[in-house]
């Protein structure tokens, strides 16, 4: 499959008129959006302005040819702030909010000649695994292979658009699996980095100790390229890791002979659809054929207690992070009347969707006097044990493997029947690496019933390179 590298070369060599190309690409986005709803906002004017600027620079300034993303269309999940472009995190409470600044990752993309084409659809504030929990008035994105089915979430629009649109890479965001899970349902590569590797400056937060911005690409090369651009220390994010960045592209096609992979025992068997298991096993076989050594490992805490730990941390943090949305300064407003508590209550009750209200209430409960020790603090302690369990496993293995999702992309009519807890259970494979802040990657491994299946690779902190090495071995083994 053609990666954006070839496209960038053509732009540099003058074989592509970048303005004309961008115009056509925007028209294609509009067409795709008619059926699939991947973009909440298409930033047509800004994109064309950027393309015109690149065209001028190409004639005048030779240095521009060193730009890593020259002319490449990049979409941003709607929770990532883009200057002067409506940024809502999929919520009515932020409708019409046009940030006065760019998020760190957007600055980086622009500095490297990338063209921001729009904001991709998502569950409201990232609260979901199927992109059906969109805010009031927002449209639900559809699976690129079957419009009756979910494209996964919460970075659903990002993954769907990546499958449908060529010469494009997406900025996604994950709190509990929101990059890899939609990537799996849409048949693309999703790379979620170590917590703190990519600055969260300008990301509308959901759960501040777990939110991570990452890349989604049609090829592993694309995902690695964008990760190279966005990773690095940023003093504006106090949780940014001040550690030297790696060159992720150097791991592409690097031999994997002798690498050790641990197959998570609890992630196979009961509860996993047969077709999913079969294809993930094929993926493991491909890695073995390339020389990796696979062995089973039991990880009890992550699979058995991951969901409870994750949801207690995530809802607790979400309930505080969302306290700032109150109809003052920016975002949705109501008529100013009543006391300030009455006003804030009115704004929040009228503009948050159901799942946002549920999670705020769950999190407020978990932090309340009398319950805090049993829920919130308990989850933080279980996180310590979980990190220790993973760290022990990484003494022996370079990466751990499970299916990314235990099921094929479900139909919307089946999702409707799920209770919120059943909905949460879908995240069973992905929440724990997120709780532990570990980098993880979705690798497409096959199709069943014309629907894509993904394999999840998890590595130790700051070992994104190993994921790319293993992921590209599967891609090139095909």
């Amino acid at each position, binding site marked *: 499959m053609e990666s954006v590298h070839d496209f960038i070369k053509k732009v540099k060599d003058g074989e592509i008129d970048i303005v004309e190309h961008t115009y056509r690409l925007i028209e294609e986005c509009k067409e795709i959006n008619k059926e699939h709803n991947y973009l909440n906002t298409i930033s047509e004017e800004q994109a064309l302005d950027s393309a015109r600027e690149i065209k001028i620079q190409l004639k005048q300034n030779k240095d521009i040819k060193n730009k890593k993303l020259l002319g490449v269309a990049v979409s941003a999940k709607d929770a990532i702030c883009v200057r002067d472009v409506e940024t809502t995190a999929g919520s009515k409470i932020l409708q019409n909010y046009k940030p006065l600044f760019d998020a760190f990752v957007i600055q980086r993309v622009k500095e490297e000649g990338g063209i921001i084409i729009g904001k991709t659809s998502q569950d409201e504030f990232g609260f979901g695994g199927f992109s059906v929990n969109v805010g009031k008035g927002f449209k639900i994105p559809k699976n690129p292979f079957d419009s009756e089915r979910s494209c996964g979430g919460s970075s659903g629009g990002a993954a769907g658009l990546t499958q449908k649109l060529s010469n494009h890479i997406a900025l996604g965001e994950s709190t509990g699996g929101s990059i890899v899970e939609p990537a799996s349902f849409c048949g693309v590569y999703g790379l979620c980095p170590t917590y703190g590797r990519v600055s969260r400056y300008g990301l509308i937060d959901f759960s501040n100790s777990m939110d991570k911005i990452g890349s989604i690409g049609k090829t592993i090369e694309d995902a690695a390229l964008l990760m190279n651009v966005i990773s690095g220390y940023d003093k504006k994010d106090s949780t940014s890791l001040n550690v030297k960045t790696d060159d992720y592209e150097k791991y592409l096609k690097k031999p994997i002979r002798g690498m050790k992979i641990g197959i998570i025992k609890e992630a196979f068997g009961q509860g996993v659809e047969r077709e999913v298991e079969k294809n993930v096993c094929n993926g493991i076989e491909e890695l073995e054929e390339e020389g990796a050594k696979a062995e089973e490992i039991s990880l009890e805490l992550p699979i058995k207690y991951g969901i409870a730990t994750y949801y207690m941390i995530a809802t607790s943090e979400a309930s505080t992070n969302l306290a700032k949305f109150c109809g003052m300064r920016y975002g949705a407003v109501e008529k100013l009347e009543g006391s300030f508590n009455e006003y804030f*209550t009115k704004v929040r009750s009228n503009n948050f969707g159901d799942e946002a209200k549920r999670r705020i209430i769950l999190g*407020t409960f978990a932090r309340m006097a009398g319950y805090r020790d049993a829920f919130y603090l308990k989850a*933080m302690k279980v996180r310590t*044990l979980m990190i220790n369990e993973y760290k022990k496993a990484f003494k022996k293995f370079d990466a751990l493997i499970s299916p990314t999702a235990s099921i094929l992309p479900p139909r919307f009519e089946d999702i409707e029947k799920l209770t919120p*807890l059943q909905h949460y259970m879908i995240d069973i494979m992905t929440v724990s690496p997120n709780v532990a802040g570990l980098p993880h990657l979705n690798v497409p491994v096959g199709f069943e019933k014309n629907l894509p299946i993904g394999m999840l690779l998890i590595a130790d902190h700051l070992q994104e390179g190993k994921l790319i090495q293993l992921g590209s071995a599967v891609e090139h083994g095909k």
Partner: protein
Amino acid sequence: MEVDRKLLEHVAELARIKLNDDEIKKFLPQLKEALEFFSKLKEIDTDNVKPSFQPVELKNAMREDNEEKCLSQDDSLSLTEHKKDGYFRGPKAI
């Protein structure tokens, strides 16, 4: 722990959310089911385990207390209709 209508309304009030009757009817069994499931964390022995408030070790990030460039007053006020005389307008505080 009894999760009932009274507790739900109290927690919602703390979170500045007013639930209508339909929402209460819908949310109450859903939240009960979720909290019951989350309670299974108590099965795990966490005596003498320190909580991890972050997944990776982080040091406090400090900076010099110097004046820096910030948003202008006009820009700051540009995102809301509730403003007056160069200030944000809010609901009555007293």
